[in-house]
């Protein structure tokens, strides 16, 4: 395993960030961590596909959106509603961390058994992608505040992005641009809805959003 390959180092950092996100309750720190994670991921195409025009534009655009614009929107959203901390998640921090580690371990074991093509075998992209997907999913379903659910969605999208990087030929620039733009607008709308949630319910706890039921 070519260990000190910068792409592999960055991918390991991504996994460490996943663990941090699962265990942290400070919202500011979580948002900034997702921003750094997005920024790291946006640099990966440069390592994988060299410094061609396509990957430079993609990396630049992704960095701008994932690393700067989207976190800015989220930070603004929580500043307006003055929340600082997440409440105890549905499972508790320690069980969530345990689940996240199990999912990461499972991702590593599972990806060895996948029928990959030769150059991808043994690389860290697929397991890290799967682990990030699992982390995003865990955050989505176990957290109570709307903002952390939005963060979970962003982490999930980060995981999909990792997969997308393996297939740069299939994803032309326009589509990538469209995807990123969609993400930006989605987060923008989420921010607005979060603000409205806070205005109506005076809290961002989505437990309160449980009146609609059978």
């Amino acid at each position, binding site marked *: 395993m070519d*260990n000190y390959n910068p792409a*592999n180092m960055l991918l390991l950092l991504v996994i460490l960030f996943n*663990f941090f996100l699962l*265990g942290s309750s400070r919202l500011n720190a979580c948002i900034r961590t997702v921003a750094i994670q997005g920024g790291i991921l946006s640099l990966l195409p440069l390592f994988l596909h060299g410094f061609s025009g396509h990957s430079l534009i993609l990396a630049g655009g992704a960095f701008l959106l994932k690393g700067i614009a989207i976190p800015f929107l989220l930070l603004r959203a929580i500043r307006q509603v003055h929340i600082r901390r997440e409440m105890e998640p549905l499972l508790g921090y*320690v069980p969530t961390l345990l689940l996240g580690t199990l999912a990461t*371990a499972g991702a590593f074991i599972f990806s060895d058994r996948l029928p990959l093509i030769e150059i991808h075998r043994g690389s860290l992209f697929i*397991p890290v992608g799967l682990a990030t997907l699992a982390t995003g999913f865990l955050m989505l379903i176990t957290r109570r505040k709307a903002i952390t659910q939005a963060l979970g969605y962003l982490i999930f999208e980060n995981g999909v992005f990792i997969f997308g990087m393996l297939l740069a030929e299939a994803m032309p620039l326009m589509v990538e641009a469209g995807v990123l733009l969609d993400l930006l607008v989605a987060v923008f709308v989420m921010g607005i809805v979060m603000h409205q949630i806070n205005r109506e319910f005076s809290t961002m706890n989505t437990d309160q959003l449980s009146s609609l039921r059978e």
Partner: protein
Amino acid sequence: MLELLLHLFLLLGLSPLLPGVIGKTKALFAGRTGPPFLQSYYDIWKLFGKGLVISRTTTWVFRAGPVVGLAVPVLAALLVPFGAISAPLSFTGDLIFFVYLFGLARFFTASAAMDTGSSFEGMGAAREVTFSCLAEPTVFFSFIVLARLSGSLALDTMFGPALYTAWQSAGPSLILVVACLFVVVLVENCRIPFDDPNTHLELTMIHEVMVLDHSGPDFGMILYGAAMKLFVLGALVVRLVFPGSTGNLLLDTLLFAGGMLLLAVVIGLVESTMARLRLLRVPQLLVGTMLLSFFSLILLLR
């Protein structure tokens, strides 16, 4: 023979220097001059000359605690290579012996604390034992990683020459192991962010409160034992970070001593820049560290 003497000399002679260096680093950060480097030596010397005050409610356990606390690090040090100086004592599976030696010491310290019948000390004992319980899996996972890399279950070989080649083949795993073992050093020696060695409020103490009732030579033994424990556990981290060997024994010894002092500076740095964690968060952090070491094992296994 030479290794045995060097081990004992380094351990007994150098270990009280570490708390001094840590204190000096913290003072520098705070803009003070701080206590002199050799302060721990002066303290131990002073304490051994003082008289003993023993509570009437205690038994022999109370006297045994500090003695065991002094003997265990000496024995444990003989199992661990100091830098490139190999360990005098080594047998397969001695890593388990190593971990449980410290468990023995902890048991006696906690029992001595509870023997006094004071509720503060019982509280401190409970906290200390919980934290060590949570830190133990980390140590074991880290040792398993090293055992796999070196192919042996003896600490001497695990931390021996195989380490240099291990860094080339499994760098990321070893980086995580170093981080995890550093956290273990902080936990076991009751440093910030897990415990504040300078606090004077009993409700916030963990280790200090356990040794509150000891005095005179007993307290001296406790201080010395704590310094030696820091030295031995720190030696693991230093060996991991500086895996090579120059071949010249004197140079190796000097390098090792330098590494230990550097470790003390780093601990001082960590203590100066971080605040103590809320008690609720410590178990979460320790479980996180355990999961991190588990993850480093996974990285190795794939």
